[in-house]
Structures are given as C-alpha cells and as structure tokens.
C-alpha cells in the first residue's frame, strides 16, 4: 500500500494559488487559532502542549511542553521566546519552506507560544543566508501588526507582544541555542556552559528564555487548534504529530515530505516516496537526521528492544522514521534531514566533506572540538588525496572518541558522531583506501563526483 503524506505544517506549501501574504493566509482561516488562544488562560495552553507530547523539531527532540515548564516564572524577569530559524544542519531544508511560503503560519505559532509562556518579546533568529526569508518575515510581521494581530493589546485581549527578526551571518553554531543567545546579544556565538546557563533560567540577557525551532512553533499552532490529546493521536506514542523529512542525495525525487511520525519506514521513504535510486545504482548508506546523525549502512541488521518492551529486528529499510526507532538503531531523527548515498559514493571522501563542514563551523571555544574537528578534517582530506595510512582509521576513531561527551555544547557530538560511525561501519573501505593509495585518489571511480 503506498504511504500517504499527512500534511499538517506543509498543508499549503506549494499548493496552487497559495501565496505568502496575509490576505491569502486569512482566506485559509489564518489567525483564528490565535483568536481562540488569547481567550484562554496561558497555563491551559501550556497544558495542551504538554499533553500533545510534541517534541522539538530542531534536532534534540526534547518535549516542547517540558521545556516551557522549566521556564523560571518566579524570577520576575521578562520571559523571551526565540524562534530558531538558523536551519544550518546539513541535509535540512524544511524551515526555509515555511518561512518563504507560509510565513504567517510561523508568526501565528510564535504569537500563540508567546502568549502561552507570557513572553512580551520574541526574536526570530534567521540564518544570514536567508535574506529573502528575512524580508518575507519582516513583511509578514508588519501585516500582522496592521491587523492588530501583533503589537499592543492584540485582538483587544490586553496582551501585547513584539516580534523582531534578527539575522545571523553564516555560522552553524548560531543554531545551538546558547550560541544563538550569545550571538543575539552581539557577542561571538560561544555556547554557554550548562550548568549554570540553562536558557529556561538564564537565557537571553540572563532572563528565562524558550528557544524553539520554526517547525516546532508551527506545530504548537496545530496543537492548540486540535487540543493536545487529539494531536497526540497523530503518530505513535512518544512520537506524536507529523514529521517533515527532507530527502537529498542519490534519490530520484529529492525533496520535503510530511508524514505522521512512524507512518513510514526508511525504505518506503526512499523507494515509494522519493522514486528510488538512480537507475543501476544500489543503496550504500543513509544519514537519517542531518549530517550529525550517525550513518546507517545498507545490509546492516538492527535488533533490540524498544521503550515499550517490544523487540525489533530490522534491516536498514525497515526502520520506522520516528525519534525512538532511529535512536534504537543507534542514530537519531535529529533535524529530519535524510541524506541518501548510493554505491558510487566514496565513504572516505564523504566523511572528509562532513569533517570539512565541522572544522569550518566549530566555534573554537573548547579544546577537544576546536582541535579535534580540524584534525579529523586534515586526516580525512589527506586520505582522500592519496595519502591514506592503515593506522588512520583507528586514529580517526580515537580522535572522535576524545571529543564526544567532553565539550561545552553538543557540537562535540555532532562533529564526532559522523567519524565514529563511518570508521565503525566502513572500516573496510577506509583500510582499502590505504591499500590502494598507490592508485587513484578515489576508490569509487565509477561515475562518482569529487566530494572534497
């Protein structure tokens, strides 16, 4: 049976005749949910979000309701909401669609969320490479203001809120919430140590702050629309709602697709949704949740027990695309970026490409990540350029092991997981590279393109 998309967030994206202006949004029932929300008590809204179980779509998959619950409301300081629109995790391109094609959905989600947590100011931190997106959002905010949906005393509710767009300038680390906060404060985006600087307590300007991903805030709108319990019926327990999957790499129809969580397997996604691989090619590997996620190799078998106690025995293509299943197979759903690689891919080069990204993006604050990320890049680049050594594979793994779990922020894991998983799962290919080093630089000469 062909799998069916469940378009909640992307309902109007790419729909014929749907435009990103306020009129169009209002014609499609826009801001009705905000109108209802401001009639309710903020705590009730938080409660609905809690009940919905909706998990963060920015990468870590942390339950949004819990995050809001941790906000320090006793401090008397203002509470801030930050919408994380830094979308920088390689392989991820969903927030861009929302921002460009349905900005009011995001603005409505932000307004409802602000009201729920009683924030008076929200910042949308948008990556610098989205200049058009920033303009669209600015315009959308102005439109909303003109209809008293934003600003003073919105919809006569007595509640006032301002939203500002703040542009980054080309740094992946600004996606990490405390790096983002530092950047927004006008400093180098050095992530903060936690403890003590948990955003919910000591966030922006040392005030309690909720940082949420673009998609997450859109989900909040639908949670409030349906009610938490109803929303939770979409997807599977613990993995509620829909999930936008961004597929790129070696598939016939790359793109973004939205499904109820757990509704489809990785195999279905690749073959049924994305039209399969290019003719004559076979699947080699998949990175299922943005480039930081550990790679999965075709032909692997995954066995174990799920949270609910049931046991599983999956091949790569059987893995359900939800948070818990991907965690169970040793990777993660992350940001929803699925990168597919066929048999033409040189895994050493692919890792070198990823390592170049992390070496470029490490903020450089803490020793293991700063030095380790560049070292891993140097090793894999050298290996890709014809000077691989047998011992490199173990050295790489060991360097990565010296980073993960020992850094200020989760970039440490993000930059070491690829290396750890590549050398574990493609050890043979790394060793072959060394054996064949007298030969061509690339061991996969058959139609491959250079990756580094």
């Amino acid at each position, binding site marked *: 049976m062909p799998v069916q998309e469940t378009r909640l967030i992307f309902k109007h994206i790419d729909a014929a005749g749907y435009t990103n202006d306020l009129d169009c949004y209002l014609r499609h029932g826009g801001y009705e949910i905000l109108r209802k929300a401001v009639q309710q008590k903020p705590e009730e809204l938080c409660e609905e979000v809690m009940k919905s179980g909706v998990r963060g779509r920015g990468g870590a998959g942390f339950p949004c309701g819990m995050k809001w619950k941790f906000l320090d409301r006793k401090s008397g300081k203002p509470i801030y909401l930050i919408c994380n629109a830094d979308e920088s995790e390689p392989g991820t391109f969903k927030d861009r669609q929302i921002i460009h094609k349905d900005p009011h959905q995001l603005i409505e989600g932000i307004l409802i969320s602000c009201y729920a947590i009683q924030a008076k100011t929200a910042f949308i931190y948008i990556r610098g490479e989205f200049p058009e997106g920033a303009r669209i959002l600015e315009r959308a905010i102005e439109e909303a203001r003109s209809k008293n949906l934003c600003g003073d005393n919105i919809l006569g509710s007595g509640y006032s809120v301002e939203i500002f767009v703040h542009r980054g300038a080309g740094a992946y680390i600004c996606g990490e919430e405390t790096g983002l906060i530092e950047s927004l404060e006008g400093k180098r985006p050095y992530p903060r140590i936690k*403890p003590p600087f948990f955003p919910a307590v000591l966030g922006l300007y040392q005030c309690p702050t909720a940082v949420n991903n673009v998609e997450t805030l859109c989900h909040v709108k639908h949670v409030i629309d349906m009610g938490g319990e109803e929303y939770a019926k979409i997807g599977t327990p613990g993995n509620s709602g829909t999930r936008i999957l961004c597929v790129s790499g070696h598939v016939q129809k790359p793109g973004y697709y939205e499904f109820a969580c757990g509704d489809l397997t990785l195999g279905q996604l690749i073959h049924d949704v994305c039209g399969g691989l290019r003719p004559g090619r076979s699947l080699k590997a998949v990175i299922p949740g943005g480039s930081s996620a550990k790679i999965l190799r075709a032909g692997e078998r995954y066995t174990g027990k799920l949270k609910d106690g049931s046991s599983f025995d999956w091949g790569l293509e059987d893995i359900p695309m939800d948070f818990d299943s991907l965690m169970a197979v040793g990777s993660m759903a992350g940001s929803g970026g699925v990168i597919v690689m066929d048999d033409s891919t040189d895994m050493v080069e692919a890792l070198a490409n990823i390592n170049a990204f992390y070496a470029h993006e490490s*903020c450089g604050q803490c020793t*293991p990540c700063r030095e380790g990320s560049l070292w891993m890049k140097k090793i894999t680049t*050298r290996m890709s350029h014809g000077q691989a050594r047998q011992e490199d594979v173990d050295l790489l793994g060991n360097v990565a092991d010296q980073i993960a779990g020992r850094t200020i922020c989760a970039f440490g894991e993000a930059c070491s997981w690829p290396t750890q998983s590549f050398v574990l799962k493609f050890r043979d290919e790394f060793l072959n590279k060394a054996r064949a080093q007298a030969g061509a630089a690339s061991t996969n000469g058959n139609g491959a393109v250079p990756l580094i």
Partner: protein
Amino acid sequence: MTAPAQTDLVTVVIDGKEIAVPKGTNIIEAASRLGIEIPHYCYHPKLSVVGNCRMCLVEMGMPMIDRGSGKPILDDHGGQKIGWMPRPAIACATAAVPGMQIRTTTELVKQCREGVMEFLLVNHPLDCPICDQAGECRLQEFATDYGRGYSRFIEEKNVKPKRTRLGPRVMLDDERCILCSRCIRFCQEVPKDDVLGFVDRGSYSTLTCYPGKQLENNYSLNTVDICPVGALTSTDFRFKMRVWFLKQTPSIDTESSVGANTFVWAREGKIYRITPRRNDAVNDTWMADSGRELYQQVEAEDRLNACHASGKPVPAPEALQAAVALLKEGKTAIVGSARASLEEQFLLKKVARAAGGAPVHLVAHTGEGDGLLVSADRTPNLRGALLTGLIDTLPPASLEALGAAIDAGEVQTLVVVREDLLAAGLTEAQLERVRIIHLDTHRRPGLERAAVVLAGLTVFEKAGSFVNQQFRVQKFQKAVPGPGGAAEDLFLLATLAAELGGESMPSTPASVWQAMAAEIAAFRGMTFAGIPDDGVVVEAGRLAELPFVEGESLHYKPAAEAAGV
C-alpha cells in the same frame, strides 16, 4: 573573625575523602583543600568561569533517590547508592552540593586529560627549549603528567603570528596560545580595558589586540602572570633569567596606600621582577605595572651609596656622631615620612622625644586613584604614622607651617626622612637658614646642602611593616642586601634616639614590635613574627574617621561610603 555558620557548609566526597566547604565552592577549590590537584587552564579564581579548556573534567555522582517514595536508594552495603553521570563534568563550573561525589583518578578522567593535552599540543610549536615560560608553563607541567610522550599528529600545524608586541610591556606568541581567554577576561573584568579578543574561529582562532590599540593599561602585566603558557611574556623580564634560579621574597607594593602584596624575585643580590602575591582582602592576585618597576630604584643612578658628613662620604657611625652633635644643640624640627616603615616611624617618634620634643611635620603625597590598586594616597604608610603617634592629624599638602617656624627662627636643625623639601613647599632661603640631617635612599635636589646625609635602605633591602588604607598591618621581608655604604634605617634611627636620650633603643623589627606592643594599644599582644602573611587589621578607633583622601579601590571603601553615608 566569625566562622561561617554550619549551615553554610556542604560536605562532598572527593576520591573517597570527605570535605566540608562553603556552599557554592567549586570542585577545583574543594579538591585543593584536600590536597588533590585538578589540573586546569582556563579557570582562575578571580575571573569569571568559562569552562573552555576542558582540562578539569572529573566524574560526578549524586546519591540516588527513589522518585516515587523520595527515599534514598541503598546499595548492597546499606550505603546510599551513587548515580554516576555518564559524562564527565568540568570541576571549575561544578558547585559543591550536599552529598556530591567526585572521582578524579579514574581511567575516564585520565583519558580526558590525555585527550585535552594531546589536542593542545597538536598545533603547538613545541619550542620549550627556547621558551622563557619554561619552568612556569602549565602545558609543559601537565604534558609530563598526562602527555602521550609521542605525537600521533602528522598533518601540517596551523601557522599564527609570532612575537607580536601587544603593548609597551607585553609580547604575544600566538602559536603558543591555548585560547583559554584568561587574558581577555582579565582585561574586561579587572581594569575594564577591553582591547584583547579572539579573531577568526575554530582552530584558527587567534588572540589579538585591536589593531591601532595597545595593551597598555597599568595592569597589563597581570596578563603575563595568568597566562598559563608562554604565549604572553613581559618585555622586561623576557629571556633575562630562568625562573627556577630565582628566590621569591614576600614584599609590599609601596606606590600607594593600597599595599598590594608582592613577591620580589631575586638572585645573587639582583632583583629580576616583582609579581603579585595573592591576598583576597587587598589585591586578589593582581598588582599594577607601575609597582613592578619599583625594583629599579635599587640600582638607580641616583642611589645613595654612602653616608655623608660635611659633603664627604663617611662611614655611618661617623655620620651619626655628626648628626647627634647637631641635634644636641636643640631647636630641632622633624620632617617624617609616610613612606617609612611602621617600625621606623615609631623610632623617629622616639628621636623627636629625645630631641626635646621636636615637632614632627609630614607632607601628603597624593595623586589620582585608579579605583583598583593605586590609591590617591601615594604613600604606603600614612596610617602607620598616625598609629605610632608620629602625627595626629592628616598631613597637609605642603610644609607651610614648618616654613613659618623657620622664618620665625624657631628651627635650627631639621631632620628629614625621605622628603624633597623644595618640592614640599620650603624655599631655598628657608633651607639656607637650617642645618639639615637627611635620611634617604636616593639623591634629591638640594641634598648637597645637607650637613649630614644618612644613607638608608629601600623596601627591598630590609624587613618591616606598613599599615595600608584598611588599617591592615602587612609585613615585608628583605629580598636583597643594600649597598655597602648604607645602613639599616632602624639602626640609624635607634642610634640617634639612644645617643640623644641616653637609653638603649630596639633596632630590629622584632624588638621594635615588642616596644610597640607595650606602648600602643592598637598593637597590644602583637609580634612581628606573628603578623600573618596576608596581614592583620588593627583597631584604629577614632583615627578611622579622619577624612582620608582615598576613594574606593578594589577592596576598600572610604569610611563614609562604607557606613552608607
């Protein structure tokens, strides 16, 4: 002293040993109280905590509690089970909480340290043989303890600027910098002179002073002190002497009434540098650059190397005899000094008494205070002069009253301690009318006019004590011997007082202290040896209410302000 209340203490267990520390103490400090060293680079007790070096990673655990019942979960031996965190935590940013358990000797901790050391060395030039930080380099030190001993790094090292002049006194070698940000935080947080920062990012991050600006504030050399490696060096001290050859002597910065605690580093009678000595109540771990240059006085061009009588160099006893002869004629006045030690002031008071109750004048030396460690009172011991009773009011800015007395013919002989009389407001004509006995360390304008010159010692060449702006008595010790022709100030003053008064006088700090303890209420029960390294605040009584000139400094608030007026 009040002991912290029991409730303010929390007990943590580090490597199986219990220690009670004040709530909020971090694990590096708590461990050090147990004699356990947790290696660290970026943490500095007097700066904000950033946790960037990751050298201080330790294992942390908390007693487990059953969520449902709230009761402790017990292990097989009946003790409370410890839930160890899967990831190591940084000791510098981990505050002690009750029941916390820390392990610093496990395989994981060892691996963490080895990993950080390896990472710090991959892009480091490894030029220790030519690095003048050798001996004080934490990188070198920990490399021996946690280094692999061989390098697994075969790639090309990053290239960064070497030998950059950051300012008049500080040099930077970026290839040695481990990016701990101590120097940046210091500049931001202490002198509030934000000129240093990192440029570029990742492994290419580079410490820089903003082009067109310099690290030239009067505290710049503290960055050299706190740089854990050889990246920041002093242009003055560079390459002059390997530190392990030097002996450190505790001393006091004499440039103002703050009295920053210092170490004087010397070898074979020569001083090479002065660095701050930690005193949390006075100067924390800092001192001004200006105070570090004071050792240059010792070998200055104009140093007084001999006593003089009638313009000719003579041995000290001869000069003293000439002085006594003059003093016996009477009509003496005295210009004392707030730069003299407490002991010297006490003896000078004795001289005044023996000289028939000669009036004592003092002149103020003031400048602008910097709010940190150089106060508006540019003498180290004004409070001493008050406590010893040498004077009983704050000194005026000039010696006008003395001038008037000279004009009135009331003064025939003037004993001067460490003052420039002309600068202090006396006229050439007035000086012509008196005979001067001058005790000093350096030549001053008009000194050739003195009938007797007594050559004394600088603070580096003798022991004694000063009373700083907080009425804290602080000791200094002798770091180097004085010039051959000079004599101990205490000996000179004691001899004068004894010869004039006919009774013997103490002439060592210890013996002067015995006398002071007996005579001066504020010093009752004290001994020189008993003054702790970080000094001791004495009861100043009404003196504390005098309108002293100082504004606020690092650990001092003017009496009026402190009282909230």
